[in-house]
């Protein structure tokens, strides 16, 4: 079972850069690990630390309040590039539970949903409002974002992902239950399936 999603409230960490790629979220040299752990400290490493490894004071994640906030607001096409799932692992280990943007790259979005990190797509005007008001407290539920003035913004999330997050359903468990269909499919295709030796 995966952890069940629970609604939460948080202020935001605004990070107004478009096309933040997964090489920035977690540089490749940290992917030599065989574990999922310890990636939170390496999140945005090359933007976050100087050459000596000291935190850069002007970087958004190094402000005292960033560590207490669970929502990252990024620019358009967040998470593009490499398929590394280390990106959502690093983001969640840092403490984020949602990323808000105007769009997400496909693989990053899928990887995030499998790790309880909500990729929230909002219209441009809402996005601009969030950047102008990063200290506003947002209420995040599975398909809605509620702003302090009471406005509720619905965001697109497919019903199956919503169901998995709400119930803590683990996708692999769900697929394993479809064993009969998989066996039937393989049986029917055996004649034409390319067997690899």
């Amino acid at each position: 079972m995966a952890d069940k999603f629970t609604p939460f409230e948080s202020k935001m960490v605004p990070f107004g850069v478009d096309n933040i790629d997964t090489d920035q979220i977690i540089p490749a040299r940290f992917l030599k690990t065989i574990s999922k752990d310890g990636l939170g400290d390496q999140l945005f490493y090359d933007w976050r630390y100087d050459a000596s490894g000291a935190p850069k004071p002007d970087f958004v994640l190094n402000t005292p309040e960033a560590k207490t906030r669970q929502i990252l607001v990024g620019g358009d096409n967040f998470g593009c590039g490499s398929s590394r799932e280390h990106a959502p692992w690093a983001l969640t280990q840092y403490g984020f539970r949602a990323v808000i943007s105007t769009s997400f790259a496909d693989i990053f979005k899928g990887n995030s949903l499998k790790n309880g990190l909500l990729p929230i797509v909002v219209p441009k005007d809402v996005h601009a409002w969030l950047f102008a008001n990063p200290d506003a407290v947002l209420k995040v539920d599975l398909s809605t974002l509620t702003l302090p003035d009471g406005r509720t913004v619905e965001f697109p999330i497919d019903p199956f992902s919503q169901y998995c997050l709400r119930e803590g359903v683990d996708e692999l468990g769900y697929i394993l239950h479809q064993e009969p269909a998989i066996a039937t499919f393989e049986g029917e295709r055996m004649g034409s399936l390319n067997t690899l030796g």
Partner: protein
Amino acid sequence: MKPRTIIEKVWDSHIVAEKPGAPSLIYIDLHLVHEVTSPQAFAGLRTRGLKVRRPDLTFATVDHSTPTTPRSFPIVDQIAATQVAQLETNAKDFGIPYFGFQSAHQGICHVIGPEQGLTQPGMTVVCGDSHTSTHGAFGALAFGIGTSEVEHVLATQCLLGRRSRTYEVRVDGTLKPGVTAKDIILALIARVGIGGATGCVFEYRGSAIGALSMEERMTVCNMSIEAGARAGLIAPDDTTYEFVAGRKFAPKGADWDAAVARWRQLPTDDGAVYDHTISIDASALEPMITFGTNPGMGISISGAVPDPASMSDPLERDSLIKALKYMDLEAGKPLAGHAIDVVFIGSCTNSRMSDLRAAASVLKGRKVSPKVRVMVVPGSQEIKRQAQAEGLDQIFRDAGAEWREAGCSMCIAMNGDQLQPGQYSVSTSNRNFEGRQGKGGRTFLASPLTAAASAVMGVVTDVRTLL
């Protein structure tokens, strides 16, 4: 029946189950596994006590964190050595065919799949690597997945997924001398933008695509992800069948004839409708090069670095300003003539025989600039041997370039092959993100011809001046 695109045909023929309210369950014909994105997936299998369902449809190799120094030396980086050893253990424990560090067939997973005949038309192919789209060159639906999905495929040979939108990329006309498959794809990404094809699968078609060799088609499909596309493919034709025929894992005899008959049904039906379409005139293309920090920031070699003042969208303008600052480039200036420190010829984009031959054709009888380090990294051990048999290694060495062992190398800079802070490279790889080729390094993406010409001149060079 409604006319369908090849994208829909391959998808439809792999649906295992469809239930209301859930994504489709899709069967995977080939799963390529490498050392970086798989250890946590195998750990997951062990925790649950699961086996690999179809080790015969799974194939493992080491490429990302492996050194390209002579194989007689051990892997010095102990963290990388542990990761490589872990894949070896996993392959052995779960019964997966494996080309290890010392194998005569080791190579970049997207190079060896086609090389061994593992990649075939009409297949679904996945790998924990976004450049899996390379295999689309064979008319396979091939896409990158995360580590959770690697675990799903290992355990069930299936994935949950949704149909992507279809995106037709028509490329007609004849390429001019000095202009290559790499320039087609860089031009496409510059037009569509780095996120322009999110949610889509490209089908590349048209006379210029039909005229490409399989290796060139792989270069085009390889970079589909750099426009945001989930995959990119090319319908199989006689060029495809000639390439696949006789390879180790290709069907043989009557099975081959039956397979080709099946594959001939794959191309898009007349009258099929795409969700999006774009057309590119191949005859109007020039050699392309990127100037910025994502692959969509590309220009013709004769063009100038764009000016942020000309951008209307404030976030786009900020992105360009940030990119030019990182690259330390001046808006409005040409890139040609800009000094470089390193040339990297390799990666799953451009490390195959035709790429090495192209680079060698420029380097033959010339010397690389004394100011430039030039690394040539073949995509696989088989390519390395073939290149040596043709004497290409000697051409590279005589010119002053390094001839190295197979792997991803400086494309991802995980294995010690990397740029130093501030250095500029012309690279035949696929990503120019900040720090991608080494922290603080600056990458110009281009074709093997452009890379070789730049190596000789020591500055970004229009290869047509050397032809």
